[in-house]
């Protein structure tokens, strides 16, 4: 696999971040076009810096959207050509650790979707929907300590289980943890989602409030929005 960092191509954090984004693409595609894409990104960023002094939110949001949409397209392309079974094992390199971690994250993800849908229905993303929570509190999922189990324990377990292959193989001289993560983007996604979900426990009103306020007012009044949402 092409290692851009070892090749000395990555001069700064922005390039390193873009290389991380490239992990979203299927490995074969990344090996074929990754270096060229990084070159193109560097050219785009240099032009943006010449024009505006720095690469701003507009630049980064367009890069993010372009990367996510085209990566999804490439994965869909392989899925259509090779079928689900081959895609999961050869392209995504999904292993049993990934499957267990995904199952552990499901209850929280499901609850997050219900919470978000409730907020959309009431037209106020900054506060939870009382009707939704009244209904949910009647289910065993909301009883302590069950709530604690799937909201805190399961995401922690999911992250830890995703890291098990790293721990098992760390003593092998040829083993590189970074290589494992590069070749198993699902593990990276699970670890990221797990950490974000744990953060969401603390920030479950703050984050929807930020999304809602930024969508209405834009990024211009960001400091005001942050201070308002902290009180949400």
């Amino acid at each position: 696999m092409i290692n851009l960092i070892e090749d000395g191509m990555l001069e700064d954090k922005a390039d390193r971040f873009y290389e991380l984004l490239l992990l979203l693409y299927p490995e074969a595609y990344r090996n074929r076009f990754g270096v060229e894409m990084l070159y193109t990104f560097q050219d785009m960023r240099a032009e943006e810096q010449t024009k505006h002094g720095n690469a701003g939110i507009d630049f980064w949001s367009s890069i993010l959207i372009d990367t996510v949409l085209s990566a999804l397209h490439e994965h869909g392309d392989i899925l259509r050509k090779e079928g689900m079974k081959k895609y999961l094992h050869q392209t995504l390199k999904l292993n049993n650790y990934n499957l267990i971690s995904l199952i552990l994250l499901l209850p929280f993800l499901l609850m997050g979707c219900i919470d978000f849908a409730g907020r959309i229905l009431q037209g106020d993303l900054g506060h939870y929907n009382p009707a939704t929570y009244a209904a949910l509190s009647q289910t065993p999922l909301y009883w302590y300590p069950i709530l604690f189990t799937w909201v805190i324990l399961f995401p922690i377990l999911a992250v830890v289980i995703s890291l098990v292959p790293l721990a098992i193989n760390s003593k092998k001289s040829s083993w590189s943890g970074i290589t494992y993560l590069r070749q198993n983007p699902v593990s990276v996604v699970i670890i990221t989602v797990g950490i974000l979900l744990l953060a969401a426990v603390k920030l479950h009103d703050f984050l929807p409030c930020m999304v809602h306020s930024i969508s209405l007012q834009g990024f211009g009044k960001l400091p005001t929005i942050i201070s308002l949402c902290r009180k949400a």
Partner: protein
Amino acid sequence: MSKPKAFSNANVSLTPQIFYILLSLATKARHGYDIMKQVENDSQGNVKLGPGTLYGAIKRMLEEKLIVAVDSDETRRKYYKLTEKGKTIFSSELQRYNGAVTLAKKRNLFTDPKTVKAGLTHD
């Protein structure tokens, strides 16, 4: 029955991205960023390609043998140029556009977009 390929013959319509990439490569071989800038200029800013969209299109065009990668002086940057098949498809697409434009002119269908917009607003 297998699905027909997007570029299997010269009668298919090309997407705006593919069309403008072919247009940018019609005059000379270019590398990724050069293609991106040329497409933006040629389309007057209407078609903007990010690295992901650009290389997705390049991948499909390589698979369909519309373009090929060529060696360059620079060590890593790859240049792309049209193949004979690419030239044929691009040429027939231009002829198709030309036919449509000629017909539209004959039927007096060309109107100033500003006039049309104003008419719609007043109605």
